[in-house]
C-alpha cells in the first residue's frame, strides 16, 4: 500500500431495511464503495440532526461485493443507542445517511489470501466473518473454512439459516455453534476449537471478532491448540 488512502463522506441511500433478529436490523445502503471493498472491512456512518449536531459510529460490512451496488450492515440495537436507535426505530427505505470507507485492511480476507480459514465470532462480532464466508461462498469454496459462533440463544444468532444451509450444502465449511444460554447449549472450549481445527486442518488465516472477553478466550484457546499467534487477527468491541 503505497498510495495514500483517502476516506471521504458520501451520501448512501437506504434501499431496504428489515429485522434480522430480535435485536439486529439489516440495512442495505446504495453507495459508491459497494464494489470496492474487502470482506471484513468496516465503514463509518454519520447522522446529522437539523441543528447540525452529528454522531458517527463504525459498522462492519456484512455483505461481500455482489454487484448490487449496495452494502449490507447488520446493526444491533444497543440500550440507548444514539445511532443504532435511529436505524432500528426511525430509518426507512429512501432515507439517506453519510458513509465513508472501506476502513481496516488488516482484518479482511479475499480468496488470494488463502486458507484454511478459522473464524470465531461472538454475538454481533460474527458480522465481518459473515462477509468473509459470503465472499468464500461466491468463488472460493475450495478453501476449507470453519466458523465458531458464540451466541446467547439461537433466536439471537445472526444469519443462522444462511450459515446452517451453507454448512449443509458445502462440505468445505463447518459451523460450530456455542449457544451459551439455551438449554443443552455448549460453551466455547478447547473441545470446540479442536473440532473446528479437525475440520479445517492447520489454518492459514484466523480471524476473531467479538467482545473483549470472547476474543481473549478464543485467542487463548486457539494459541493453546498450537496455532501460531502471528496468524491471528482480532477485532473487538468494548465491554
Amino acid at each position, binding site marked *: 500500500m503505497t498510495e495514500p488512502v483517502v476516506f471521504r463522506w458520501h451520501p448512501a441511500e437506504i434501499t431496504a431495511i428489515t429485522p434480522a433478529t430480535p435485536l439486529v436490523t439489516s440495512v442495505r445502503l446504495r453507495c459508491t464503495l459497494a464494489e470496492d471493498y474487502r470482506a471484513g472491512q468496516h465503514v463509518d456512518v454519520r447522522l446529522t*440532526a*437539523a441543528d447540525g449536531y452529528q454522531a458517527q459510529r*463504525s459498522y462492519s460490512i456484512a455483505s461481500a461485493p455482489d454487484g448490487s451496488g449496495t452494502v449490507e450492515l447488520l446493526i444491533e440495537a444497543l440500550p440507548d443507542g444514539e445511532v443504532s436507535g435511529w436505524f432500528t426505530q426511525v430509518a426507512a427505505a429512501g432515507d439517506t445517511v453519510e458513509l465513508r470507507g472501506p*476502513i481496516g485492511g488488516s482484518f479482511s480476507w479475499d480468496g488470494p489470501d488463502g486458507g484454511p480459514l478459522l473464524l470465531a465470532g461472538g454475538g454481533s462480532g460474527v458480522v465481518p466473518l459473515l462477509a468473509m464466508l459470503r465472499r468464500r461462498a461466491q468463488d472460493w469454496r475450495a478453501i476449507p473454512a470453519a466458523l465458531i459462533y458464540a451466541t446467547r440463544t439461537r433466536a439471537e444468532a445472526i444469519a443462522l439459516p444462511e450459515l446452517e444451509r451453507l454448512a449443509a450444502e458445502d462440505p468445505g465449511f463447518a459451523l460450530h455453534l456455542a449457544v451459551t444460554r439455551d438449554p443443552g447449549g455448549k460453551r466455547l472450549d478447547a473441545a470446540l476449537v479442536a473440532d473446528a481445527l479437525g475440520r479445517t486442518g492447520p489454518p492459514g488465516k484466523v480471524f476473531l471478532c467479538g467482545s473483549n472477553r470472547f476474543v*481473549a478466550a478464543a485467542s487463548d484457546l486457539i*494459541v493453546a491448540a498450537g496455532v501460531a499467534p502471528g496468524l491471528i487477527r482480532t477485532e473487538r*468491541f468494548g465491554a
Partner: protein
Amino acid sequence: MVTRGFVGRRPPPETGARLPPGQYQTDDFPILQIGPNPTVDRATWRFTLREGSRPIKAWSWAEFEALPRTAWQGDIHCVTKWSKFDTTWEGVSFDDLLADAGIAAPTPFLLAESYDDYTTNVPVADLIGGRALVATRYAGQPIHPDHGGPARLFVPHLYFWKSAKWVKGLRFTRVDTAGFWELRGYHMYGDPWREQRYTGD
C-alpha cells in the same frame, strides 16, 4: 446533510466541552489491536532508542523502573469514537528518557515499535516538554497486557492508536514515516480536536 428524524443524544455541556468532534464518552475501556496480546516477559524486556538501525541506548525492566517517574491524569480519545475521561497513568517521560540517554533527539520524527510488530509515527515535538510517557502503570496498577503492559507509549493529546501498546523502542527517523495504520489510510498526525482520523481529514 440532515438525516430525517435524527435528533441525537447531546452530552451535557460539561461533558460536551471535553469531547473532541465525533467522539462519545464511555466508562468502559475498549481494547483494540491487530492480533493477540504478544507474550512479553519482564525478565527479557528491553526498551531501545535507535537512530535508523543504530541502537543509541537500551534499558532492562529494572533499569527502566529506576528512572524518574511522571504521573498524568486526563482524557483519552480513540479513533473508533470513544473517549474516556479522568484516566490516570504513570511512567517515564520522553524527556527523562532522552536525559538518561544523554542525548537530544537526533531527528524530528520517530516510529514507536512494538513487540507485536505494530508501528506508529509521532513527531518528536509532540513527545517533548512533558507531553508523552512510556507508561508502565494505569490507575495505580501495572498495565494489564490487554491495555499494552508491561509498557506502552502514551501520547494523550493524539488519537490513542499513536499510544502504541507493548512498546519495545523508539526509532528516530529523518522523515515522517507511516506506521501500521498510517499505511492503511489513518492520518499521519491524528489530532482528535481537528478530527484527523484518516488521510485527508
